[in-house]
């Protein structure tokens, strides 16, 4: 892995040499995030969101383990145990608010990270596996976040669990038994709460495992870069440490400022007031919405209000919602353009911009009540979303004439042609 000019790890102390022989962990770190990992010299700030997603994953795991010390996963006392955390546990309010808002920041980081990959063509060869693992991480994160939101056992928790498990009911013939299997009952109750807690504790560690594979897959070809041009020689790279450790450290500091500002001054801004009402299986809140990071997919789910051929509307919505993310698995083969970076694709650039706006519109509609005009807007936006991946991208690959690429990363940075070829 890595480039032939990567700096070799040479332990200077006797202990370092002994360690290197027996367990070369320092060597591994040096070659992964140290001076032994050369990274393209032209990475822009969009390349900082991977480390930020990692930061918030750690925040979630640390605060989550602490919350689990005080939380009781029993439908009779779960809500009270959360109030116990908020009122009685030393700094419990802070740790819970960190966990609740940390989820949002994790998704902010991961969305910008995905957007970066979409624009700069980071999913293209030789990084398809890297991209596929990233989609898996995203799916696992969604499942984890959903189950975590159920645990406080408030009104939104309960009805969110009911609605999302209700999706499985749409599957023909086996839908109802599957829903009952998932819930361990006919509606969310103690059995569901307990298994959601168990899985909510497990899945983050599965995410960590896939993240390790994601980074492993990254380090084989090395990072993509804003030009999308391959690294050609030592002049195109800088050692990860100190250059990108310092740059990541700077944005980690910035992100923590925004995070703590939200956590301390607007801790419930991204939550829903109804979740401070204990779960009541006999009364549905007037306006059920998931957390903001699910809104675009929720809008696609609700966009299908009509039956199509023999497929009922409910099943269509569920299929569309899952397909909206599963289509990402095929992205490396839908976009056949050999040019990676959107910078050099004049038409792709425009359609990418439209896609971003389209997803923001879907997000707005997903958070709005299920009534006109939002239903119609959702339908149009959902149609465009699929058209982008299934029609526009494949067509652009052959119709678009890309701009000339720079000969090398160094040339694009310095503006001077490269003298020596390596």
């Amino acid at each position, binding site marked *: 892995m890595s480039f032939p000019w990567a700096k070799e790890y040479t332990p200077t102390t006797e202990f370092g040499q002994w360690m290197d022989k027996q367990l070369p962990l320092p060597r591994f770190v040096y070659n992964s995030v140290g001076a032994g990992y050369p990274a393209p010299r032209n990475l822009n700030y969009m390349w900082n969101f991977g480390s930020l997603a990692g930061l918030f994953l750690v925040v979630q795991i640390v605060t989550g383990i602490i919350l689990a*010390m005080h939380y009781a996963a029993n439908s009779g006392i779960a809500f009270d145990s959360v109030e*116990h955390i908020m009122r*009685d546990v*030393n*700094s*419990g309010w802070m*740790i819970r608010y960190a966990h609740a808002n940390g989820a949002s920041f994790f998704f902010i980081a991961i969305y910008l990270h995905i957007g970066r990959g979409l624009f700069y063509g980071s999913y293209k060869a030789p990084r398809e596996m890297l991209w596929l693992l990233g989609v898996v991480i995203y799916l696992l994160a969604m499942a984890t976040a959903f189950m975590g939101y159920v645990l406080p056992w408030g009104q939104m928790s309960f009805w969110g669990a009911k609605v999302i498990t209700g999706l499985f009911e749409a599957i023909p013939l086996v839908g109802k038994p599957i829903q009952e299997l998932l819930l361990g009952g006919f509606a969310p109750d103690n059995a569901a709460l307990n298994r959601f807690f168990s899985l909510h504790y497990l899945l983050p560690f599965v995410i960590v495992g896939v993240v390790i594979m994601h980074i492993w897959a990254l380090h084989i070809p090395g990072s993509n870069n804003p030009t999308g041009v391959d690294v050609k020689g*030592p002049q195109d790279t*800088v050692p990860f440490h100190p250059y990108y450790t310092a740059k990541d450290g700077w944005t980690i500091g910035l992100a923590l400022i925004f995070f703590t500002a939200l956590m301390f001054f607007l801790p419930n801004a991204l939550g829903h007031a109804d979740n401070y009402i204990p779960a009541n299986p006999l009364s549905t809140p007037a306006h059920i919405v998931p957390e903001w990071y699910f809104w675009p997919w929720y809008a696609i789910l609700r966009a299908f209000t009509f039956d199509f051929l023999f497929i009922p509307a409910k099943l269509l919505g569920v299929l569309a919602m899952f397909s909206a993310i599963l289509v990402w698995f095929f992205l490396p083969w839908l976009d056949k353009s050999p040019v990676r970076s959107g910078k050099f694709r004049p038409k792709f650039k425009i359609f990418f911009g439209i896609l971003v706006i389209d997803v923001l519109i879907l997000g707005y509609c997903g958070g709005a009540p299920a009534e006109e005009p939002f239903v119609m807007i959702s339908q149009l936006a959902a149609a465009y979303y699929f058209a982008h991946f299934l029609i526009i991208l494949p067509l652009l690959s052959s119709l678009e004439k890309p701009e000339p690429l720079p000969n090398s990363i160094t040339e694009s940075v310095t503006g001077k042609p490269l003298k020596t070829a390596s």
Partner: protein
Amino acid sequence: MATVETAETAVAEEGGVRRRDFINIAAVSFAGAGAVATVIPLVNQMNPSADVLALSSIEVDISAIESGQSIKTSWRKQPIFIRNLTEKEIAEANAVQTSELRDPQTLAERTTAGKENWLITLGVCTHLGCVPLGAAQGEIKGEYGGYFCPCHGSHYDTAARIRKGPAPKNLEVPEHEFLSDTVVKIG
């Protein structure tokens, strides 16, 4: 690498210390201080929570305890022995030279002035935390007529002081105060 590392070769100032060294140390120290400040609440959350602390004092009515009797009650989820000492037990406790004791204390130091007959201690052996015998009717009181811990054989005298066995300290006397002749507040 050759072109981008020019900053590294910037002229060293006096004593070979560069501005970048200062920035580096300042930034890392700031991050370190922040990390320590973050760890404090993350560890402190394990301390007793407000609802646990709220139960930290109790009031006990001792009017029904006759001389020579004792009761067990519970305080902070731990047993408490309240013992109404007889004249003989008081005399036995006072007859001991404190210099002979492993944990030298007089009965007067372990009780409230004017109420030396009320011996209030935790029912937790200072060896490894078992509940000693001797408070309830018919239990073995040990060789010194106080308490006896069955786990590892510690003997306490009538002032609940350690006399024999592995325990290092006398049974702990919790902070307490007589609200009246018949009510004592513990904690």
